């Protein structure tokens, strides 16, 4: 490839939305005595080149690395963590453990399976918002979000679909049909539970355990059905922007658009938990670069590292824009952003010393926090996730592979 016009790229070819200044929509529609806390998790499959991500010095006066430079305006509202990971191996296959600490192959051995940070948070929101969580991503994403039954939640990859879900009310006749459908479904669920219980009494212990999963699933559907019923007749908020059209978009444009829609979803209190994942299939040709996966195997070649730098700075630029938007909406202080990857150096397929940063949430941010390198003082990344969950309002004392809450910094 030829010369990279970095400025053009960083500006983006974007269709980024100009968000009008919003009166506090959420406060108007759903008065809440205390500002709700929100969580946004952002993950990239192919890591961040460590040499350009981690600052040298520790503390608040660290020097911004080239990947972090776009976050300059927010440097006092973020903490970069060194030496955190889940102790997983497996390269590409371990990336899905980023928000879970547990690989799907091992999930069976854990009470909450490989539930991800966002879903654990979403559970504690319950039906307070229309959507317990909003999971978005570019194409297939990177297998980032998992439920407590060990099921992968694929991301919404069409911004238009998300827009419709957030802001477009269905017609009254459709709603009536939907209500009727939900009602019949509830009766069907009752009969299935009874049927399974009858069957259960004829089975051996091992089979009963399998059937338990079925019964749990029935309860899960019932719970969701209950939530749908609560929301079906409540009008959706007015969209402050014009409808997002259903059309083919470049991946680099989708990233900004998803961030914008997530900001709106949080601001209108349609959800309090959102995720965004960029996967192996992220098309970097749109940034005039080679295929992302090829570049990530930089093998310490300067050309490839330079190209990686463009992508990674693109991703942090979008993050910085998102933070500015939340600030403008006056919700950055109630929103904690988790940003990083389940891979550190994609060239060696390493899942150690993961690039992780926390931003926003009005934490007393530490700039660059260097955690202990050596066992037994090394801190599992799950500890950080546990503290994030506590901050969010999920009362629990374990998550993933946690050994306790995160002690190196006060969170919440």
């Amino acid at each position: 490839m030829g010369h990279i016009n970095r400025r053009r790229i960083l500006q983006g070819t974007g269709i980024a939305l100009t968000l009008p200044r919003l009166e506090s929509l959420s406060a108007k529609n759903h008065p809440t005595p205390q500002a709700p806390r929100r969580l946004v998790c952002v993950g990239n499959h192919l890591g961040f080149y460590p040499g350009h991500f981690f600052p040298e010095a520790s503390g608040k006066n660290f020097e911004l690395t080239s990947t972090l430079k776009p976050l300059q305006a927010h440097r006092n509202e973020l903490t970069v963590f060194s030496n955190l990971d889940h102790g997983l191996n497996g390269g590409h296959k371990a990336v899905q453990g980023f928000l879970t600490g547990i690989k799907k192959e091992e999930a069976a051995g854990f009470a909450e399976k490989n539930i991800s940070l966002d879903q654990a948070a979403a559970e504690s929101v319950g039906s307070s918002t229309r959507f317990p969580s909003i999971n978005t991503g570019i194409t297939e994403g990177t297998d980032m979000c998992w439920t407590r039954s060990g099921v992968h939640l694929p991301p919404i990859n069409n911004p238009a679909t998300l827009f419709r879900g957030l802001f477009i009310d269905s017609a009254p006749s459709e709603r009536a049909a939907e209500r009727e459908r939900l009602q019949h479904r509830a009766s069907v669920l009752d009969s299935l539970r009874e049927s399974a219980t009858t069957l259960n009494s004829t089975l051996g212990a091992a089979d009963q355990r399998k059937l338990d999963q079925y019964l749990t699933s029935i309860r899960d559907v019932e719970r969701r059905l209950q939530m749908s019923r609560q929301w079906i007749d409540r009008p959706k908020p007015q969209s402050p922007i014009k409808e997002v059209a259903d059309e083919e978009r470049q991946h680099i444009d989708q990233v900004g658009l998803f961030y914008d829609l997530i900001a709106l979803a949080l601001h209108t209190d349609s959800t309090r938990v959102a995720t965004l994942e960029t996967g192996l299939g992220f098309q970097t040709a749109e940034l005039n670069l080679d295929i992302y996966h090829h570049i990530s195997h930089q093998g310490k070649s300067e050309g490839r590292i330079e190209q990686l730098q463009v992508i990674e700075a693109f991703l942090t630029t979008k993050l910085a824009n998102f933070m500015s938007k939340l600030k403008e909406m006056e919700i950055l202080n109630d929103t904690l952003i988790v940003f990083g990857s389940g891979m550190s150096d994609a060239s060696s397929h390493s899942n150690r010393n993961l690039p992780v940063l926390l931003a926003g949430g009005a934490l007393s941010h530490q700039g660059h926090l260097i955690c202990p390198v050596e066992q037994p003082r090394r801190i599992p990344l799950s500890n950080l996730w546990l503290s994030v969950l506590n901050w969010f309002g999920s009362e629990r004392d374990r998550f993933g592979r946690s050994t306790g809450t995160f002690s190196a910094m006060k969170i919440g």
Partner: protein
Amino acid sequence: MKLAILSICMASALQSSGQAKEAIHAFLDRHCIECHRVSESNGDRRFDNLPVRIESTNDLERYQEIVDQLNLGAMPPEDSPQPTVKQRRAVIAQLTEMIDNAYGELNLSGGHAVLRRLNSWEYRQTLGDLLGINVELWDPTEKFPREVTVGGLDNNGNSLVTSGTLMEHYFASAEEAIHRATQFQEKPQTRFYQQKSPFYFEGEEAKGLPKLFQTGRFRWIPKTPYTDLLGRHYRGGHLGFLPLFREGGVPHSGIYRVRVKAAALGRTHDYGKAISDFRNGDPLVLELAAVDRRGSVTSNGNVSKMKSLERIELTNEEPQWFQWDVHLDEGYEPEIRFRNGPIAAKRMVRLLTSVTPDKPEFQPFIDLEDKLQRARGVLAAYQGPRLRIWEIQVEGPYLEQWPSQGHHTLYGDLQPSDFNDQNLRTQLTQFALKAFRQPQVNAASTKPGTQKLLDALEPIVQLALRKMDQGMDPLKAYQLGCQAILCSPTFLYLDLGEGELADISLASRLSYFLWSSSPDAILLELAAKGKLRENLSEQVHRMLESPKADRFVQHFVRRWLDLDHIGEMPPSEDFIQYYRDNLGSAMLGETRRFFKHLLDTNQPPVELIKANYSFLNRELAIHYGIDGIEGNHLRLVEFTDGEVTRGGLLCQCSFLNASSNGVDN
């Protein structure tokens, strides 16, 4: 053969003997732990805390990584003391055995066959067979969560997960399947549709049509009685079929006869590099695709779902009729495409005018200011490969039976108004027994096993009766009951039995093994009479000869060799043959045909590696560097000694692609 392979996997349950363990750890101490330990931890790997026994998947992967590095010869690094070749080999063998055994231990369900949920693949076939609906175009499991696999296989009862998400999809798919199988309306008439060139429109006529049908820089209304297709991209390379677009696709699912009058022009050209993405002299490949335009967007040619149905190679410059009988789902319509043309008409204009600007045929146009006139002029004068289409005809649906067998399974001979509280129970019971993979019984001879199922069905019968009581239309109440049956545990879970198998469990085991679906009436009847065992060999042969046995080949090979991986790390777009020549599907076809050949001719497992033949078409042969293979169909090719050999799985493109990580170093 499968048995042989399985028995290899299930070798000794012990991880490794004490002696081997000592040898392994002496080796690790000397060659690995020296650098990978607490204070050094090179490459972020530590092996000093590696447990002696593999207790978890994580341990297993750490050991696997060591074996991988030893196999590659990448570790120990050059500047460190090296083990002898013999030592290296021995420790690789010991570690591999230890890993294999641990793998088995970590994933077995303690020697018991547990109640197993149908996996997505089996659910799809079972639903299709039960209700007689085509599940090739419509995939009821499209949105199901991916199945958990163990050793690549997705039929480990212990590991398959049932979740609320999956349940919700079961509801939706059952509802849709019942809707698709229901045929109370009059038998649809066979209709004839026809479109002669031109296939593009403009002005009033073009209003509201997708771009595909509109004229533009690369497509225009020709003065000739035919239209030339120029490239692979939809602009100038795909033809829609207006009569069926106007109807919103075919009005009924069924078999349709598609006829196309076409010819191949300019197969040999002298445009050199301008048209280098076409292999000079090749036949032109005409593709028939089924497309669904509902919910589509303009930028991808207004197609939301697509399936390639047929491909044919054209060599004749004189027009000929080509004809296929294909299944089209309601709402789908045909498209005709130039499958192996140059990439895109737009690109062709650019290259023809920059690489071959001196060609006399382009002179009148090359300096035109008007971009539209210039592009059209150049493309009309162009003498390279053109797929020439005169006319497209579609006739259908041809329905073998109306209403279908699936409708009959659901409703028997009853009409909508026939349903009432008297026959609801009988109808639901009859349908449930079929869904539950049971032989049809008369009430007098109910066996205890069947009674168990009827007890589990009772709440569903009660549901339907209650709904009807509350005023629901009796047919609707019946359909709701059927939907519940298709979501009930007795349908979704296979009770495969243990120990000495009952014939009925044996029937299900056989059919899910070889057909990925429920046993048919013949198997069930033999099982009901207790005669399945004595006819076992004959039945297995019958099953293998059925077209349904292809499901076993297709699915087993796909899982075993992780072939879904193909395309996950797509070849670079510079590798144009891959896309133009459909190498992806040819390589899958090669491996399937090879496996099926071994199965059909009962070859020993070693043939998987040792075979000196494979199944190739022209494109795959060219890719392998083998001359003299003509035509797009796969056929047996023997490799002679000393030539290129691509015999055996390990040399096949699919295997190599699926096991690579997509990086060319």
